[in-house]
């Protein structure tokens, strides 16, 4: 054994400690919003629609395949409906499984809309499949989703 002063592995040099300190300041300064999960989407849908069955179809949700800026992502949703007094869309709700809040927006329509289509711009906190659920006047629920890859996520400030 070479004659060396004992230096336990756990001991940090002054330099290392300074670097560690700087690092932890960075970590502490980074806000960590708690992100929603697919379960939160289910909970948000139950709150809005109860336990009614949501069928896939009739709803076309469009998002860009790649969203370079998560702070502003164009979204459009269209529901296959004649929009008459007897058969129309009552509301469309948008859900995100990876934003801090699962609810994104809700649009109320009626037979006077003529066309069940809405477009807006949303924020996305990461790559995800956004979901749209439409409620018809007969109470039936239909859904559609769109996957988008988010390059620069919103809600994350480094």
């Amino acid at each position: 054994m070479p004659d060396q002063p004992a230096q336990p592995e756990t001991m940090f040099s002054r330099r290392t400690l300074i670097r560690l300190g700087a690092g932890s300041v960075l970590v502490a300064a980074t806000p960590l919003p708690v992100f929603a999960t697919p379960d939160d989407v289910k909970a948000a849908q139950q709150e809005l629609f109860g336990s009614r069955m949501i069928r896939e179809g009739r709803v076309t949700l469009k998002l860009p395949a790649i969203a370079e800026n998560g702070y502003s992502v164009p979204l459009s949703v269209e529901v296959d409906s004649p929009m008459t007094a007897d058969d129309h869309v009552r509301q469309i709700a948008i859900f995100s499984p990876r934003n801090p809040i699962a609810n994104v927006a809700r649009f109320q329509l009626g037979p006077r809309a003529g066309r069940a289509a809405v477009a807006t711009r949303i924020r996305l906190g990461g790559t995800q499949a956004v979901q749209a659920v439409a409620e018809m006047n007969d109470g039936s629920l239909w859904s559609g989703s769109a996957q988008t890859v988010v390059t620069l996520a919103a809600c994350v400030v480094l």
Partner: protein
Amino acid sequence: MAGIRLSVPQTARKGEVIELKALIQHPMESGYRRGSRGEQIPRNIITRFECLYDGEIVFSADFHPAIAADPFLTFYTRAVRSGTLAFRWTDQHGEMWSDTATLTVT
């Protein structure tokens, strides 16, 4: 605050489905950002939008923080008669902004 831009056709035929666009300048502060001193910037968002056709709501929306700054909407309505289209935004504190456009139906 509250620069509003509307896109509404001036004229339409009776029964025609017309496209409406509405934008309001607003930061839609999500409440998840931090300022330069690390303090949380409080949430400040528009939560409600309504479009009234001669006083009757024909389209409305509820916004959450996931709506991008300067909220922008495109939607449709059927031209039934000449009249006024009013666009109304309300923020979380109850402050309201609105603008109107006139539609002539032939």
